[in-house]
């Protein structure tokens, strides 16, 4: 798809769909986690941190650390628990 780290050998995936992250179009598969889809597209920085301002992305990948949150429909959601669907519009969370 884009040279990203999706495992391909003997793996069949659902239909390709696309969503946007901060206006960039991301190609992915319906039902995969947004966190995985962004990583596969080479996007590692999902937001900035409120205090130190550093870039943050996926850390625990299982809904504990809250590092991978993105903005979806005005809410902050963990991208590792959010499933990709066609037309999803997501934004980076930034502060200040």
């Amino acid at each position, binding site marked *: 798809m884009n040279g*990203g*780290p*999706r*495992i*391909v*050998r*003997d*793996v*069949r*995936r*659902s239909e390709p769909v696309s969503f946007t992250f901060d206006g960039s179009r991301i190609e*992915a*598969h*319906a*039902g*995969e*986690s947004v*966190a*995985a889809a962004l*990583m*596969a597209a080479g996007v*590692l*920085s*999902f937001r900035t*941190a*409120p*205090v*130190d301002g*550093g*870039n*943050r*992305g*996926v*850390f*625990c*990948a*299982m*809904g*504990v*650390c*809250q*590092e991978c*949150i993105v903005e979806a429909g005005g*809410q*902050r959601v963990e991208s*590792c*628990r959010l*499933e*990709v669907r066609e037309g999803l519009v997501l934004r980076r969370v930034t502060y200040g």
Partner: protein
Amino acid sequence: MAEQQTPPISPIAPVAPVDVLVIGAGPAGATAAIKAADTGLSVVLADEQKAAGGQVWRAKSTAILSAPSTPESRAGDDLRHRLSASAATCLFDHRVWQIQPLDQGWMVALTGPEGPRVITARTVILATGAQERIFPVPGWTLPGVIGLAAATALMKGQMILPGQRVGVAGAGPLLPFVAHEILRQGGEVAFVADLNGLADWTKLTPQMLRRPGLALRGAGWLARLRAAGIPLLYRHGVRRITGDGRVEQVEIGPVDDRWKPVDNQQTRSFRVDAVCLGHGLAPATEATRMLNCRHDHDPALGGWHVATDDLGRTSIAGLYACGDGAGILGAAAAPVRGRNAAKAVLADLADKSGAGQTSPASNLRSVSAFGRAMTSLTIPRDGILDQITPETIVCRCEGLTRGDVEAGITAGGVSPNALKSDTRCGMGPCGGRFCQETAAMLTARLTGRPVEEIGLPTARPPLRPLPIEAVASDFDYDELPIPAPAPL
């Protein structure tokens, strides 16, 4: 609680109480639910993931239509098949955020795809599993640094590699598993840096042979990593991770037998696009801390864990715990512990006087030998604190450095709650799960006390962050009762 009128917290009214609510659908919780349902109890099983299996037997995402099976995927499929054939009601994609005692039983508040709901239950089994312990090191907040357990979740569930060229570092059995899985699935492993020495592993050979199949698989992983020419660096740890907004380079160096960095001339740097870092598992204690259960500290069981009897009864009647959340014993022991907890519930509900008599399945010690050996590789050694420079962020949520945290401790924040009030360490959205242990070890070092004396912070609801809309019902401001102002 009788004198207190609990206000309704959800628009969905509680229905008749179920006999048992199981929280967590990993191998322990799902087995407990199946066993309890098989004996005729009414059972609800809730999990925040979208399918049963927990982390170790994690289900694939719905984006994966077909993929080659592995021993873990087959074990998970078997569990999910048995669960769907049982009478237990499953609530996946549901998060428990509050558990409250009632006169009889428990009220549990959840959020799910259809909104909030409340379940009342006569008994609750907590099977909330473990979380990964990851010690700070300079650069560990950079995107591209993920946990070893995170790597397994991404590879098992999403079938995505952590990166194209990955450094694998830390301690414990996930090191060879993750490194080999990356290699097997077509990624590149730059190095494996293990804080333990080869001798730490070889002395566990007798226990590892209790699960000969898994021991043999592990030996195969190491052989293939060696054959691929990947540097397997024992008694080595990460010194720093650097990059411009994402991981680009990692520096590795030797450590001593307390895991303290030594020989600064002997470091090596690797170009990587991801680092998988982890130092073992710690029991998830937020729910049992919130409910004021008794906890014990045992490094051999992952540190702090809820105290239970042989069958999983906690110090609070009607509340049970099983699986790694009640002390890390590993995946093979989890179903045994789940069955034991179901037995205890059945006995106690039949015998209202309280502790119904029943005996635990006797083979817990033998099935947990392998898991206990693996946990022993991850008992934190205090020299690891020396990899954390004063400028390194310790509390990721609040952006607090080691220097900030130590200043708080020195100023009197010598208990987790005092340190939290003082500095906000552990107050962020992760609930202290990734800084608590480091902060306790720093406190122990600075105060000269053993780490178990430092204690645990209080846990409060919500157990997970949740949007306020999830718990506040629709209302107009006009409907809000506004009390008359107090007379002047």
